[in-house]
């Protein structure tokens, strides 16, 4: 599939899960395809990074369910901050671990998972999607009931995949991409390189085959598809590019320039071609 064919499967108002973690292994070529489509009114579910920032900056997000939003090396995601400070999105914030349980509950098709995470904090005060539950056992402990995240479509980016949709991660952490895939009605996977099934074990052990094709509805080969987020061992984060992206939040003209240069492009191939024209890191503006 192509990025645009994936996005053609999405609709306004849908709940979209986005894999990765902060500014790490995000399906950015798919996010950019959403940006060049007319899709809007989305409910985005994410351990957020620039995926969330970009979608917020372009006004595509109605509701945001998140464990955090950060660029890692830049702790505060500036476009997300603007969205919060102008009140442009319905924010549903979860403790990072509690967010994992929302994915797990959806995966296991139960209405919630109980946890202590959130007790006594203002997570419960400000997240109207959250309720508590009392243990039916002798302890009668009141616990947070993290609701299942009902996701229409998840988007994840893997290091390798085969055409059938078996996904492989080769970096230090899968994050929660397998749960995003299992929690959603449908999942589309982009990958750095499409390989033959018999080659899946040539670069990583069997333990790296963590998303079975049972949960994948389409695969896009997108080399550099996580740029500018990191995608080890294929590449690290493009910190210079990320700094440039972050600076656009302070200056509408810089944002318009960034948008023209990097978002208003017809395809991921065009994005890659423009990236190749960039000067070496030390010489970047």
């Amino acid at each position, binding site marked *: 599939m192509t990025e645009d064919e994936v996005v053609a499967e999405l609709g306004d108002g849908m709940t979209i899960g986005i894999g990765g*973690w902060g500014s790490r292994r995000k399906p950015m070529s798919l996010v950019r395809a959403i940006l060049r489509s007319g899709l809007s009114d989305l409910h985005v579910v994410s351990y957020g990074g620039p995926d969330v920032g970009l979608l917020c900056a372009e006004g595509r997000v109605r509701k945001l369910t*998140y464990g*955090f*939003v*950060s660029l890692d090396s830049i*702790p*505060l995601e500036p476009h*997300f*901050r603007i969205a*919060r*400070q*102008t*009140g442009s999105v319905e924010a549903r*914030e*979860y*403790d*990072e*671990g*509690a967010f*994992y349980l929302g994915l797990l509950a959806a995966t296991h098709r139960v209405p919630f998972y109980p*946890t*202590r*995470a*959130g*007790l*006594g*904090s*203002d*997570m419960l*005060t*400000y997240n109207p999607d959250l309720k508590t539950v009392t243990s039916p056992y002798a*302890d*009668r*402990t*009141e*616990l947070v009931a993290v609701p299942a995240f009902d996701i229409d479509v998840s988007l994840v980016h893997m290091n390798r995949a085969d055409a059938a949709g078996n996904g492989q991660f080769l970096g*230090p*952490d*899968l*994050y*929660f991409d397998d749960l995003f895939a299992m929690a959603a009605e449908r999942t589309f996977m982009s990958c750095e390189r499409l390989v033959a099934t018999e080659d899946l074990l040539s670069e990583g052990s069997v333990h790296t085959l963590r998303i079975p094709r049972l949960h994948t509805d389409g695969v896009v080969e997108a080399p550099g598809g996580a740029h500018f987020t990191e995608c080890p061992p294929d590449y690290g984060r493009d910190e210079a590019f990320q700094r440039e992206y972050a600076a656009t939040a302070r200056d509408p003209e810089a944002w318009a320039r960034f948008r023209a240069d990097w978002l208003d492009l017809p395809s991921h191939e065009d994005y890659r071609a423009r990236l190749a024209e960039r000067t070496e890191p030390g010489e970047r503006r």
Partner: protein
Amino acid sequence: MSAATIDEICLVALAEAFRGDGELLCHPMGPFPVAAGRLARASFEPDLMLTDTIAYAVTGTVPLGTIVGDPAEDEGIVVEGYLPFRTVFDQIWAGRRHVVMGASQIDRHGNQNFAAIGDYRRPKAQLLGLRGAPGNVINHTTSYWIPNQARTFVESVDMVSGPGYDRVAALGESGGRFHEIRRIVTELAAYDFETPDRTMRLRSVHPGVAIDDVLAATPFELAVPDEVPSSRLPTDEELRLIREVIDPTGIRQAEFRS
């Protein structure tokens, strides 16, 4: 060895928060707390398990900024465990962990906020958000590193990301049974909650700081014992570890330049 400077005294005071932890996952957030965790293990708490802050548990005392897996830098690093985020959350809920976090605001009950300033629903300043604070604090031991006390200690926080003792008391015995705020270390002093009503107590004052300086930077009623000890000085071996092994480039000093 030249005399200890304030950053080194603070580092030792923060390392002291881990004393007695034994075989526990020490999980400090940010370079200064990471340095304190490494110092504690190298100096007096050898069984601590430490992460590289990415996904591995590592042995050995390595300098701040070392990246595991980089062949140019990984001399002396031995990976002893795999701790991807999912496993970290399981560890948090299993309770074998002591975290050190920062704070934008903290009150006398230990209620911590680094999520947002102003009305959370449309904040004046969106900060880090809740991150893992709610789950950390309610499930296992927590300490805080606060390099600017006067700006951070407040009468009341704008929102609670990590709950303090009053919030947890209201949950009843079962809900809060694993909650412990062990220590707060600032650039002026160390604090704990070892008081009958679990409000903040001055535990020790860093050498060169007067109690009046501490009180001037504290906008709430602080429990002050009749005799307040001085925070201990680093040993010569600790100074060597800090200066030559853990932080030879002085990353720790960044938070003292304001």
